């Protein structure tokens, strides 16, 4: 199931979801900036094993328009948290063989610390928020993977949601008790 890609450009941020092979140098060049003293990049590649099993390939599937939007949000947030000159994030869809790249992040900044930290934060945030899935095909089977970063973020969100709901329930209960009192008295 080949999905056509999409690329978004907003100010200093570039986000792309593509079925094509990723070339790290393309994104490093995209973030080149005369005011930059550093360019940090991250490349996520398919490993040949998982927990002792030989991985044959990964199959990536994306909710393309939402994934591109969420990748752009990751870029924008990184740019607001660190002093970033330019930033690019690209994720591949479809079959990604062992040794091939599934994701590339490139960040330029005046000083190295901003680029390095923004790059590190961005890959974790991507794994927690961007609607992309991978199925791992290994010898003798296949499995849909689940990111720990997503699980943690969902657990935290549920806790916050239920905390609010519980607090609202408490307020409602108090209100009920309060309004019930005159009638009871």
């Amino acid at each position: 199931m080949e999905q056509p890609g999409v690329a978004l450009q907003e100010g200093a941020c570039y986000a792309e979801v593509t079925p094509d092979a990723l070339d790290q140098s393309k994104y490093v060049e995209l973030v080149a900036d005369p005011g930059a003293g550093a360019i940090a990049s991250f490349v996520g590649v398919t490993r040949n094993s998982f927990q002792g099993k030989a991985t044959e390939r990964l199959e990536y599937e994306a909710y393309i328009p939402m994934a591109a939007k969420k990748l752009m949000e990751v870029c924008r947030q990184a740019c607001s948290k660190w002093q970033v000159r330019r930033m690019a994030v690209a994720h591949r869809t479809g079959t990604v063989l062992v040794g091939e790249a599934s994701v590339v992040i490139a960040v330029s900044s005046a000083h190295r610390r901003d680029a390095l930290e923004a790059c590190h934060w961005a890959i974790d945030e991507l794994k927690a928020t961007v609607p992309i899935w991978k199925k791992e095909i290994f010898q003798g089977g296949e499995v849909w993977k689940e990111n720990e970063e997503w699980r943690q973020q969902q657990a935290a969100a549920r806790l916050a949601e239920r905390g609010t709901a519980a607090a609202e329930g408490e307020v409602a209960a108090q209100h009920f008790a309060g309004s019930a009192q005159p009638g009871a008295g």
Partner: protein
Amino acid sequence: MLEVRVLFFARSRELAGTNETTVSLEDGSSTKTLLLLLFQQYPQLEELRGNFVFSLNHEYLGTDEEQQLKAGDEVAVIPPISGG
């Protein structure tokens, strides 16, 4: 009546046996109504119960969040993600 587009991804796509469907709902229906209807229409989704969220027009909804739907909305079933 109002019609919304529902998209399935990853495991939910395999279970539903389709990428997407169009669902007709009573005016004023919410995502909770849609959820009930999807489980009726695709009982296989039971496997994922409690383990997916909806997105509504490209924004995530909270697990317990209920939103009113309007004609032309795009809802997606989002099982645990695994990008990167």
